[in-house]
């Protein structure tokens, strides 16, 4: 489904964020990307949702090279991918419902569809009774679940989670992880970048370790490992 073919990303002053990455992520997989800060985890994810383009090599999504997508088509590509971040990226002046609905509004979905889909997805992430709360009225874990609901609303084939538990307590972290595993079980590919040793080890899924922009470990049912 996602293929990195000899991919390098070099920023200004010859800073190599990623070098010679060759790997494949199959549909329905759950992959954890592990590494210290600056190892290239975020760059790896950005290449998938086409926020960045590789300096060398190619990234394929559903066998299509992402560098061949025109700027106008990138928004279509992003609707296939749900993204979740450490800082939630919620709009503070909108309620939980409105934050999720916003993702549909900007894509031109009708009001009727929004009213049908949004409560459903909020129910799935366990916020059925918290729909009208503003982000500041929700706990960190709940805010992250709103973000998850927003990521899922387009029924994407891939969920990218960049340190989703970074700002959460251990219990909330576990809940988010369980939600990601549940989503994965329903058939969505999940790519998780994280520092959290415990939750990655408990998942017993594929682990890719990055160090200074290179893959140094890639195991099915792997363990959190930083050399």
């Amino acid at each position: 489904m996602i293929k990195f073919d000899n991919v390098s990303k070099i920023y200004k002053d010859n800073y190599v964020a990623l070098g010679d990455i060759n790997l494949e992520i199959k549909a329905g997989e759950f992959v954890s990307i592990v590494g210290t800060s600056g190892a290239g985890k975020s760059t790896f994810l950005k290449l998938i949702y086409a926020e960045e383009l590789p300096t060398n090599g190619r990234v394929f999504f559903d066998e299509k090279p992402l560098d061949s997508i025109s700027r106008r088509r990138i928004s279509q590509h992003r609707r296939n991918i749900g993204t979740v971040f450490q800082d939630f990226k919620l709009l503070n002046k909108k309620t939980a419902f409105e934050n999720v609905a916003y993702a549909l509004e900007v894509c031109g979905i009708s009001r009727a569809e929004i009213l049908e889909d949004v409560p459903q997805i909020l129910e799935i992430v366990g916020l059925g009774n918290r729909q009208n709360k503003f982000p500041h009225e929700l706990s960190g874990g709940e805010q992250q679940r709103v973000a998850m609901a927003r990521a899922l609303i387009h029924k994407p084939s891939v969920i990218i989670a960049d340190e989703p538990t970074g700002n959460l307590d251990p219990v909330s972290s576990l809940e988010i992880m369980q939600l990601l595993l549940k989503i994965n079980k329903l058939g969505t590919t999940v790519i998780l970048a994280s520092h959290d040793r415990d939750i990655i080890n408990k998942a017993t899924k594929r682990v890719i370790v990055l160090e200074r922009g290179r893959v140094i470990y890639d195991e099915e049912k792997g363990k959190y490992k930083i050399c």
Partner: protein
Amino acid sequence: MFLTLARTIKGGWINFLRNGYLSIAAVSVMLLCLFTISSLFLIVLTADNVLKGMQGNVNVSVYFKSSVTEESIMKAKKDLENYNEVKAVEYITKDQALEIFKKNSVSKPVILQSLEEIGENPLLSYLVVQANDPNQYDMVGEYLKNASFKEDISWVNYRDNKDRIDRLNGTISEVRRIGLGVAGLFSIISLLIISNTVRITIYSHRKEVEVMRLVGASNAYIRLPFIFEGIIYGLVASIISMLCLFIALKLSEQFISRLIPGINMLTLYFSNFTMIFAMQVLAGAFLGTLSSWFAIRKYLKI
């Protein structure tokens, strides 16, 4: 498509309302720009009207010696009428000339009295020649100098009016030049200020823009609210500018009609209302769009 348009227009309108002082600043500069342009337009329009009025009054009078017969004058008239540059020729007999002179001298009884004392009509019969274009009077003059009936001509009068027209023509083109310069300057200033305002709006909405991009909003959807915001600045400014122009004309109505008798700027304003308003709306919307476009290009990485 319609939904996207409605949502982005609403977004632009909300930006406009929430920007407070920034919106006021942007609209004020745009207003100044549009008001200047339309005032200058009205001034040039008035001057053009005055000029046209004067041009209608311009003519060359060819006076014939008293010894010349009416038959010869009629022959000269026919001759002149065949000349390409000439629009119309009118024959004024000695008696008609006297009538006109008396009419013009009603307020000067001394002149009328002395005319009576002379006892006979001292005036000459003449032809009033109108050219197609005021610039052709020189050619008509040249023609008269070499005409077959040149010996019959006593004198020709045309210089005075021509100088006045030349002066007015010069003033109008000067006003046009200065107007264009000032309008251009204001346009550039409002372009800069509006693009700055939109830039600040984009900056204050950067989180929303980031989220929009992440959830797959199209570039058009991200851009359009800011473009509409710019257009709204232009529209609001043009409506206020029309109002200001009306108030200014109303207040200066008497002063202007004293300065240029026979000209009513308010009538001119209303008869050209659609054109002036359309011009302002177009200019405002164009300036608004252009400045938003610049701001987005620079600050929105899409």
